[in-house]
């Protein structure tokens, strides 16, 4: 066995290659983003020819992997949990159709949420799609579960979902691993229209077959140690037992060990669905009450069935929202113990006192912000200047932080920057109002989900300006290569696709490309584009605001740098650090003026254009 010190996402990459996965597809999204690059790294080290691709979106990723799996190969796709919504149509259908080679879907949940628009529980998606689900409690277990997932997927010819939460993905652990391989299954496709292209009549039969598979998988899950197990002996009874799965099951185990509470039995359900009733029922029978601790929703709680003896979210014992961090789980267990007349794990409330103390200190509120030199900051500044009274629908990416600059009014989901723009236009137009709408969307998001909305908007004659923020990279999720650059994840050449081609192909006639660092020109172009949208012969105007990411493509982004200073003209209006919000511009409370932090300043020079008093000057 070899040793490595890895993120959970890296551990899962090892699991995929230990299982001989032949194709891996993904669209990046926190907390899943590192699985695919880590797989590339290990596949290169082991000289495997695994097919690995960043796909354009999650549905595309799923479909590509599905095709490999019905060709007999082991295939996987990974995504964040909201990405599974995008892939849902395929995911549900594939459960009925089934697969031949193992098909594993890794959907990474974000309880909190830390970096997502919802806290949805992928296990519920699995339940709804009738897909078996595994829920790891540690990076090491996640690695092992991938092997199990492939085996189950092949034995029962059904896709299997692995649901790691963020504390698996972004936990870091020393991992031992074995040989990495690429199963040498060759692709073969046997025509079978009643299966691969089944009509509703056959879908009914496939649904029936799937339900029958579930009975067998549930039986298997009842003996799937160590993922599913409990420690109750026949004949024992307990006032309280705990049922836990995933990350919370590791926290529960740590807490009970820390406080020496061997009197509380635990049923661990790392493979909760199809529900292993023959394992759970004796546990339920042996406990007067059970406390269910799971993330993020009530999957196990619903499946257990006996609500009258169950403590959980439905009884108010467990918070309905937010991450179940260890200090919260401690409180939850203590309350359940108290309700059963048992001693608490601990009476120590120091942490609670310290939270109160810390809250009383008025510590600086540090909201996430765009990086110093970020071209998006210049774009949002220009948009606000050009059309100040517009609605600004935006989208998901670093540029969501344009909300700090007042340039983001809505964020719904991937692609909604465009679809809400057309919806707003028509809603106001119905009342005879020409409402200005300036939408923003990043380049990667545009490829992911932008084009359908844009085609729809052009077709239905909506009028708005779309600013595509093209920084040449997928920045928020860790600098994945962009389609416009034509470089694939393993460094091989792909075929670059220009945004201009796609925009024009969607039927847009008005297209301009600007560099947002040229602030004045960008303001003029946005204003002109807006005027054109409202002219009788106008339509949708697209402006590509193109400047490389200052972090991921630094050398290209900062070909010329400016050493800037703030002069005596500064009247402390605060626009630069409060509205423009450059992290390198700070208020000097003694001088009552803005000062430049030389460590943070990128030298982009955009601030030279924004000061109302012209107090930012170039030294060099």
């Amino acid at each position, binding site marked *: 066995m070899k040793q490595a010190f890895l*993120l959970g996402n890296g551990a899962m990459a090892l699991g995929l290659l230990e299982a001989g996965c032949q194709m891996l597809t993904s669209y990046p999204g926190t907390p899943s983003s590192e699985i695919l690059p880590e797989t590339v790294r290990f596949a290169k080290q082991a000289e495997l020819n695994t097919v690995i691709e960043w796909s354009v979106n999650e549905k595309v990723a799923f479909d590509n992997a599905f095709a490999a799996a019905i060709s007999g190969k082991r295939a996987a796709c990974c995504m964040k949990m909201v990405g599974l919504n995008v892939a849902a149509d395929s995911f549900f259908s594939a459960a009925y159709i089934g697969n031949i080679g193992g098909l594993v879907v890794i959907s990474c949940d974000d309880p909190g949420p830390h970096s997502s628009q919802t806290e949805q529980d992928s296990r519920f998606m699995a339940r709804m799609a009738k897909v078996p689900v595994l829920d790891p*409690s540690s990076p090491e277990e996640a690695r092992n579960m991938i092997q199990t997932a492939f085996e189950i997927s092949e034995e029962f010819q059904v896709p299997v979902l692995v649901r790691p939460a963020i504390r698996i993905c972004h936990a*870091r*652990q020393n991992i031992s691993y074995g040989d990495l391989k690429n199963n040498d299954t060759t692709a073969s496709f046997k025509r079978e229209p009643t299966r691969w292209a089944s009509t509703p009549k056959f879908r009914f039969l496939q649904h029936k077959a799937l339900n029958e598979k579930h009975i067998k998988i549930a039986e298997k899950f009842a003996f799937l140690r160590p993922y599913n197990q409990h420690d109750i002996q026949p004949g024992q009874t307990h006032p309280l037992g705990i049922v836990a799965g995933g990350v919370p099951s*590791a926290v529960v185990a*740590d807490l009970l060990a820390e406080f020496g509470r061997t009197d509380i039995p635990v049923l661990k359900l790392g493979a909760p669905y199809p529900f292993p009733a023959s394992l759970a029922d004796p546990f339920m029978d042996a406990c007067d009450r059970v406390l269910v601790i799971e993330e993020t929703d009530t999957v196990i709680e619903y499946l257990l069935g006996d609500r009258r003896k169950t403590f959980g979210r439905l009884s108010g014992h467990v918070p309905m929202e937010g991450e179940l961090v260890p200090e919260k789980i401690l409180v939850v267990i203590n309350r359940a113990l108290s309700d059963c007349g048992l001693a608490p794990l601990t009476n120590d409330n120091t942490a609670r006192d310290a939270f109160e103390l810390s809250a009383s*200190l008025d510590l600086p509120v540090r909201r996430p912000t765009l990086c110093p030199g970020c071209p998006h900051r210049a774009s949002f500044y220009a948009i606000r200047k050009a059309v100040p009274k517009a609605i600004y629908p935006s989208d998901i990416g670093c540029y969501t932080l344009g909300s700090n600059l007042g340039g983001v009014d809505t964020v719904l989901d991937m692609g909604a920057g465009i679809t809400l723009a057309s919806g707003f236009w028509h809603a106001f137009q119905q009342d005879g109002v020409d409402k200005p709408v300036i939408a923003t969307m990043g380049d990667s998001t545009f490829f992911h989900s932008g084009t359908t909305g844009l085609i729809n908007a052009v077709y239905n004659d909506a009028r708005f300006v779309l600013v595509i923020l093209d920084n040449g990279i997928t920045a928020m999720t860790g600098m994945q290569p962009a389609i416009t650059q034509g470089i694939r994840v393993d460094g091989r050449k792909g075929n670059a696709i220009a945004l201009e081609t796609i925009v024009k192909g969607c039927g847009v006639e008005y297209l301009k490309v600007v560099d947002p660092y040229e602030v004045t020109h960008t303001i003029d172009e946005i204003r002109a584009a807006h005027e054109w949208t409202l002219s009788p012969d106008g339509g949708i105007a697209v402006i590509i605001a193109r400047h490389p990411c200052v972090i991921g493509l630094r050398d290209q982004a900062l070909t010329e740098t400016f050493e800037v200073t703030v002069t005596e003209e500064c009247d402390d209006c605060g626009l630069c650090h409060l509205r423009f919000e450059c992290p390198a511009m700070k208020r000097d409370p003694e001088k009552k003026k803005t000062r430049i932090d030389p460590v943070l300043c990128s030298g982009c020079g955009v601030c030279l254009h924004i000061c109302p008093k012209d107090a930012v000057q170039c030294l060099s």
Partner: protein
Amino acid sequence: MKTYQFVLSGLGGQGILFMTKILAQTALNRGYNILGAETHGMAQRGGSVVSHLKIGDAGASLIRAGAGDFLISMDEAEAYRYLPWVKPGGVIFANAKARAFPDARVAPYLSEQGITSFAMEAGKTAFDLGAPRSTNLAMVAFFSAFGQGPLDASALRETVRSMSPDPVKEINLKIFDTCHEQGKKLC
């Protein structure tokens, strides 16, 4: 062995992940198990960041508030923000002016809980030595002076040496030695 729990805090961009890796790699070299929790994604963009690291056997990656042995913070305010994670009897190491740390509103709580604290202007020292982005190394070096926990100073220094790319190896070791010495004066 007892499991040692480290809470590391700071601001996005200060290199908290590299700091975590130095501690973790040193522990791995000693043959200890490691489990940690990191901040990635949107929260990383300039906000308050925290990293949890358990050295020794553990099942869950997050440290429970009230259970951390050590808090090493690259920013004074971020030390106060993560104060609840320090256990009674724990130790805080902060990048702050030694005379002004801890804040008078915090000091009574620390003494009540038997929490000790040490501070040095690690960021300023790194800046003066010409490496303004090396507050992370400076704080590891400062921590190493106190002989706390399972990792000794020479092992930490060796990790810094082996993990630093050639162009910055010399300056990194200089920062390490300077800040280690400053810590020694407070022991």
